[in-house]
Each structure stands twice: as structure tokens, then as C-alpha cells.
């Protein structure tokens, strides 16, 4: 994999993590004051049309919309950050864009440890919790006429 592809895939990872994050947790991990920045696009609430595919793999169709908030900004250092986050959180989108910008600067390692890793850990815990509850409801159905193999 080229380093550019690696960079893109890493950026996709953190942008997705920030989009899915709970706004309250992000605010706790990134308290005010935020680093100086100028807004290129002020946080704006809108909708994205979510598509599915007929039969899961066939032609796409419009399922319905979801709310999102987007924001673009530039740090004093010149780094530009973008965010499109789920829901109607202007503050959420602004913080996510700040993190995206910081991750392209020399502060990346610190931001990763202070913000991204706790977010990823919280997400992983929530996902594991759901998967464990699902696993506890896994069933084996037996047809009554079948003799069980010894």
C-alpha cells in the first residue's frame, strides 16, 4: 500500500470515529478553549439521503434521509479540517473538524492518544457489549424427526 493510500485510510478511520462519536464524550475529551481557527464553512445541519440496494446487492434505491452536520475550518497553522458528523450537533461538527485538522499537524500523536483512542475504546466497548448480548441469544433449532448424531 502506498503511503498516500495509508494516509487516506487512516484519515477515513478517524473521521468515521468522530462522526459516530457521542458529542458529550468528544466535548469532554476536547474541552474549551479550542485551538484558534477560522471557519471555512460554519457548522451546518442538513440531511443525507441514505441508499440501500434491492436484494442487498442489486440496484440502489433511496431508503430515507439521516441528519448530519458538516463543518470546515482552518487552524492558525494552516491545517484544514473537515467533518461530517451524524445528528444535529454544531458543536460536535466543529470539534470533529478541529481534531481532523490537528491530526494533520505535529500534534497528531498527542491528539490520537488524548481524543481518538478513548473514543475508539468507548465504541469498541459498546460494540462488544451488543455482540455479547446477541451471542447469548444464539439458538440451535432441532427438527423433531431427526435423530441426533452421537
Amino acid at each position, binding site marked *: 500500500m502506498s503511503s498516500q493510500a495509508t494516509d*487516506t485510510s487512516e*484519515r*477515513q478511520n478517524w*473521521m*468515521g470515529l468522530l*462522526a*459516530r462519536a457521542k458529542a458529550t464524550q468528544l466535548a469532554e475529551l476536547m474541552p474549551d478553549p479550542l485551538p484558534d481557527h477560522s471557519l471555512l464553512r460554519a457548522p*451546518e*445541519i*442538513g*440531511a*443525507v*439521503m*441514505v*441508499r*440501500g*440496494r*434491492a*436484494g*442487498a*446487492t*442489486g*440496484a*440502489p*434505491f*433511496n*431508503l*430515507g*434521509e*439521516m*441528519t*448530519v452536520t*458538516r463543518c*470546515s475550518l482552518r487552524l492558525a497553522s494552516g491545517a484544514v479540517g*473537515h467533518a*461530517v*458528523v*451524524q*445528528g*444535529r450537533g454544531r458543536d460536535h461538527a466543529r470539534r470533529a473538524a478541529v481534531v481532523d485538522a490537528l491530526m494533520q499537524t505535529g500534534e497528531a500523536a498527542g491528539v490520537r492518544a488524548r481524543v481518538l483512542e478513548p473514543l475508539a475504546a468507548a465504541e469498541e466497548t459498546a*460494540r*462488544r*457489549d*451488543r*455482540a*455479547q*448480548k*446477541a*451471542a*447469548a*441469544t*444464539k*439458538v*440451535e*433449532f*432441532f*427438527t423433531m424427526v431427526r435423530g441426533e448424531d452421537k
Partner: protein
Amino acid sequence: MYVAVKGGERAIDNAHAWLAEERRGDPAVAELTTAQIREQLRLAVNRVMAEGSLYDLDLAALAIKQARGDLIEAVFLIRAYRTTLPRHGVSLPVETAQMAVTRRISATFKDAPGGQVLGPTFDYTHRLLDFTLEANGEAPVALRAPAMAAAVPHITSFLNRDGMIEEAPHDDTPPPDLTREPMELPASRATRLQAIARGDEGFILSMAYSTQRGYGRTHAFVGELRIGMVDVEMEVPELGFAICIGEIELTECETVNQFKGSRTEPPQFTRGYGLTFGQNERKSIAMSLVDRALRWKELGEDYTGAPAQDEEFVLMHADNVQATGFLEHIKLPHYVDFQSELELVRKLRAEVAASAMQEAAE
């Protein structure tokens, strides 16, 4: 023609003030928070998101509170709010094969690879009222078993290998969007799926039930029903690549239907498809049955005149906001219309009376 009326402002204001008081109910009882609705009436929230066609748990909870639990009124509020939102883009089609499943069952394959997972279901409950819920008890705790969140392949993909079931070949035709352009008939399958996905659950349920009772029978089995969280991805022009913009809960149903073959196709199973926002399985199963019934022409089946085969009938009557808007508008003042009707009936009666007099005279 509808002619507007003026007046009644004070009565209307007072009616709305009383509505607000009634909404609150007895002030001696604690007020319901939208967070409580979101967490504890989640299936109502899911229904409002599906039919409001907007995935936002908090907005749906607010709409339910404002509508005093009238879910169609809540759907109406969500649809109205949605029109105020700028469209930030269109997602890539969601990858339901990558779903983190909390429920996944098959009525056709006992030993479905990946296993059957019941999830938080009403199935197998006794439907007896649980009076312990009237008391404030401790929060119940679900049991856990060791697991790693991992993708579970679709069951139809196993049947596909033998050519036993029709394929859903990959296709990237951009779908029409009935929130942007008026629906055209005959409709594409993409338009039908969008209309059914946001259609009234009760209407879609009854249409599906009618096919099971013999009005356009399709012999459906639930090949797979899955519920879980799915990432939503979107291409962002400023970035030049796609990013995940959130995760949503979806319910997906694939039916496996009998098909005796046609001039061009050998006998094989065919499929119906249902997909809805949230845990919403009655709607999703019903959607897949109605989708399959509407495919009769494409599959070379006979049109028997069944309502569920009639695309215009299904699509033009599925939307509960349109339906309730037209239905309920007849209660609003129609004084001028009715005045003209009165005059018409009086005139007709006078003419009948006059001709009777004349006949009597002759």
C-alpha cells in the same frame, strides 16, 4: 374549489393553549422527557423515523411528545421539519452484509451459517400483561456470552451458488428520488422500494397479508431477517474519498418465494426485499412481500387483479401523511362549497317538483 375563511383567531389560540395543557396531562404526574421516549418507547421512535423518512432518534422522540403519541401526526411533523434541511449529499448504498447483527433469523435454513440469533424479540413471549412494569423496579440486565462483533454473510448468497435462486446482480443505476421529483407510473423497483419504505406500516402490513390470504399469492418464506447497526458512508467532494458519516440501525428482510419458471427463466426461487430504519421487523417483512407481489410483470407472472399487484393502488395510497391530509381536510370549513351544493340540490328539487306539477296538470 376550496374557498378560505377568516376569523376565529381567538378561539384557535385558546384551542391550542388547551391542547398544550392536555399534552402535559395531570401536572401531579412527572413530565415525560424526550430522552425517556427515545430510550423506552424505541419502537414508536423507529416507526416515526421510518415513515417520517428521517433517521434521527431525538427528533422522532420530540415529535412523538409533541403529537401526544399520535404517530401519524408525529410522522407529519418529521416530514415538515425535513423539508427545511439542506441536502448535504447522498450516501453510498449501505452494506448490509457488514451489519453488526443483534438479531438474525431464517425460517428456511435451520443451520444457517453464522447461526441464528434471536436478539431482543417479542417472539416466544406469552403476551400476558406484566403488572410488575407498573411498579418502578430495578433495570433488567441482559445475559452475555463470549463474542466478537463480526460480519455474517447473507443466507441468499449460499443459495445463489447453486442457481436455485434468482441473483440480484450488481447495478449502479442512480435511483429516482420521490422527494425530489413526482412519482411516475409505471414506477421502477427503486421508486417502489422508496415509497414502501416510507409507507404506512398498517397499510403495507394489510397489503402483505392480502397476498398471504390469496390475493396475489407469492408463497413467501422469510429467507433471512436481520437487525443491527450499519455504517453509512458518503463521498465528500472536498476530500476526494468516502468517509463514514454515522451508523444507523436497520432491519432487513429477504423473502424466498416459489417461482415455477417462465419462457426465459428455469424454475427457481425468487426474492422480495424489505429494508427499514430501526428495529422494525413487521414493516420490513411486509415490505418484502409487497415488493415481491409488485414484481409480477418483470417475472412474467399473471396479473390476477389483486390489490397488492396493482402498483398504482399500492403506491398512491401507502403514504399516511398524504392520506391523512386529504382525509382530514374535509373537516375544515367548506362553507362556500357546501353553499353551492345546497343551492344545486334546492334547484334540482324545485325542477323535480315543477315537472311533477306539470305532469299532474296534464
